C-alpha cells in the first residue's frame, strides 16, 4: 500500500513542480527567453513571504495578497529595465544576463538572510488531512497546493484564449514586429508577461516555503525541476506543464521509495528518457 501512497504524494508534489514550470514555460512561449534565474526568483518570493509574515504576523497563505503583487512589480521592472535590452536573434545575451542575475540574487539573499535554512509555518492546516484508506492519507496543504496549480494553469488557459491581453501575448509570440505594427507596445507586453510569470513564481514560492526548508542556494534545483516538467510535458503546451510536473513528482516519489538517494536522480533519468524517446514531450506537437 505504501507504493500507492508514494504515487498519491508524488502527484500532489507534482502540482508544485507544475507551478515552477508554468512561469518558465509562459515567458519562453511569449518571448523565447529562458530565465536561468527562475529558481532563484522562486526562492526570493519565499523570502518576501518570510518578511511579510514576520512583519504583519499573518498566515503564509494570506501573505500571497502582498507577495503576488510585489513579485509581479519586480517582474515588470526587471523586464522593462533589463531583460528587454537582451532580446534579439542572439540567444547568448538573455541567457548570460539571467545567469548573472541568478548569481546576484543567490548571493544577495545570502548577504541579507544568511545561509540558515528557513521555513514558513502555516498553522493548523499543515497537519490537517484525511485518510483515503488504511495506508493512504492526503494532507490538506498538498491538496490545496495541487488545486492552486490546476487553478493557475486553468486561469492561464482562459487568459490566453479568452482575453485581449491573451491575444496580445499570442500576437507578440507569433511575430513581435507585426504585432508592433498593429499598435501593440511589445516592450510593455513583454513586461506584463514577466509580471505574470513572477506572479505565478510568488504562488510557487509561498507553497515551497510552507512545504519544505529553503535557503539562498536552493534556487537552481527549483529551476531544474521546473525545466524538466516543461520538457516532459511538452514545450508548446500549458496543460503539459501540469502533466510533466505530476509525472516528475511521481517518478521522484517512486525513486525515493526504492532508495532515498535516488529521489532526484530518478527525476533526471525520466527527463533524459523522455528526451531520448519523445523529444517533443508527452503533450507536445511539433518538433523544435
Amino acid at each position, binding site marked *: 500500500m505504501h507504493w500507492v501512497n508514494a504515487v498519491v504524494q508524488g502527484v500532489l508534489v507534482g502540482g508544485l513542480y507544475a507551478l515552477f514550470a508554468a512561469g518558465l514555460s509562459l515567458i519562453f512561449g511569449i518571448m523565447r527567453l529562458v530565465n*536561468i534565474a527562475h529558481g532563484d526568483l522562486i526562492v526570493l518570493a519565499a523570502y518576501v513571504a518570510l518578511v511579510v509574515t514576520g512583519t504583519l504576523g499573518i498566515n503564509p497563505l494570506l501573505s500571497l495578497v502582498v507577495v503576488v503583487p510585489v513579485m509581479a512589480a519586480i517582474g515588470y521592472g526587471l523586464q522593462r529595465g533589463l531583460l528587454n535590452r537582451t532580446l534579439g536573434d542572439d540567444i547568448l545575451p538573455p541567457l548570460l*544576463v539571467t545567469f548573472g542575475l541568478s*548569481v*546576484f540574487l543567490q548571493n*544577495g539573499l545570502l548577504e541579507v538572510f544568511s545561509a540558515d535554512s528557513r521555513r514558513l509555518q502555516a498553522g493548523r492546516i499543515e497537519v490537517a488531512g484525511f485518510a483515503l484508506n488504511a495506508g493512504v492519507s492526503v494532507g490538506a496543504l498538498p491538496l490545496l497546493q495541487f488545486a492552486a496549480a490546476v487553478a493557475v494553469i486553468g486561469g492561464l488557459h482562459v487568459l490566453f484564449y479568452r482575453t485581449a491581453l491573451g491575444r496580445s501575448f499570442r500576437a507578440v509570440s507569433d511575430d513581435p514586429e507585426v504585432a508592433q505594427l498593429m499598435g501593440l507596445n511589445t516592450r510593455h507586453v513583454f513586461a506584463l508577461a514577466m509580471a505574470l510569470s513572477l506572479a505565478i513564481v510568488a504562488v510557487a514560492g509561498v507553497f515551497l516555503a510552507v512545504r519544505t526548508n529553503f535557503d539562498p542556494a536552493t534556487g537552481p534545483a527549483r529551476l531544474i525541476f521546473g525545466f524538466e516538467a516543461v520538457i516532459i510535458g511538452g514545450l508548446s503546451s500549458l496543460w503539459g506543464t501540469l502533466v510533466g510536473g505530476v509525472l516528475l513528482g511521481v517518478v521522484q516519489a517512486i525513486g525515493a521509495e526504492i532508495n532515498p538517494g535516488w529521489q532526484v536522480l530518478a527525476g533526471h533519468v525520466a527527463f533524459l528518457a523522455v528526451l531520448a524517446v519523445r523529444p517533443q514531450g508527452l503533450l507536445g506537437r511539433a518538433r523544435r
Partner: protein
Amino acid sequence: MSAAMRVTRSTNASRAGLVGVVLVLVALALAPLWAGRDGMRLLIDAYVYVVLASLWNLLAGYAGLVSIGQQAFVGLGGYTMFALAVLGGVNPLLGIPLAGVVAGVMALPVAAVTFRLRGAYFAIGSWVVAEVFRLLAAQVSVLGGGSGGSLPVGLITALARSRAAREHLMYALALGLMVAILAAIVVLLRSRWGLALTAMRDNEVAARSNGVDVERTKLVVFVVTAACTGMAGALVFVQRLRISPDAAFSVNDWTALVIFITVIGGIGRFEGPIVGTALFFVLRETLSDLGSVYQMLLGLVAIVVMVYARRGLWGVLAERSDLQLLPLHRRVRVAGFGRGGAPRETQSRPAP
C-alpha cells in the same frame, strides 16, 4: 575572384603579439625561480581557468553550444583519474590523458540526448546531465560516496620525492596543458574547421548554405572540448589530492566562473578568455574578502558587460585598434586598395 586578391592573417599587431607571447611564455616557464609557492599555486589556478574558458569559448562563442554543464566533464575527468588510481593503482599522471579519453567517449551519448534541445534549452539540459553525473558519483561507495576521498599516499609519493618537487611538477604540467590546448585551438581556428567555426559564429544559416556541415562540426567541437575539459579536471584533482562529488561537479567553480571570465574578456574571440582570466584574478585577489558581496559584484559585472559591451573587454579594444594577439583573423587584401593602410576585411568581425 581576381589574382590581385590574397588572404592574409597577420597584421603588425599580431606580429608584435607573437613576439610578446613568446616572451611571456619564457617568463612563465621560469616562474619556479621568481614566483614562490603561493604565486605558483595562483598561476596553476589561472592556467586551469584559461583552459576551461578557452574551451567553453570554442563551444559557446563559436559553435553556438551554450553549455551550463561543462562541470560534467571536469568531474568525470577527475573521477576517472581518481578511480584508476584507487582501484587500479594507476599513476595519476597517466590518469590525466586517460581521463581525457573517457570524457571524450562519454561526450557522445551526452550529445545524443542533449543535442535534441536547442539554444537555451540545451544549456539547462546539459546542466541536468552534469547533475546526474554528480548524483551517480555520490552513489559509488568504493570512491567515497557523497563525501569523496583522497588519493592513496603511495601514489602521491611516487609522483615526486618532496612536496616542493611535486609542486614544481604540477606547475610544469599545468603550464604544459595550457600551452598545448591553446596551441591546439590556434591550429584548429586556422584550419578548414576553424573557417567553418568562424562562419558558424557569424551566421549559422549562411554557414550552412555555404556547405558547412553544422551538426557534424558541433558534435566534433563538443567531443573535443569534453576530452580537453576532462584532462583539465583530472589535473585539478591530481593537484588537490582529494575529490568529492560536490567539488568535482560544482556548477559555480567550473561553469559560472568560466562563463564570467569568457564574457568579461570577450566571447567569440581567441584572446577573450585569456584577458578575462587576468581580469578575474585581479578582481578575486582584491575583492574576495568581501565574500558574498564579491560574488554579487561578479554577477553584476557580467550583466553590465553583456548589456553594454557584448564583445567584452578584448572585443572593445580589438575593435577600436585592429588588435589581435595571434594571426587568426582572415583578411582579404586587394591590390591597389588602401596600400599601406588598413586592408579591407572579411570574416573578421563577430556578428553584431
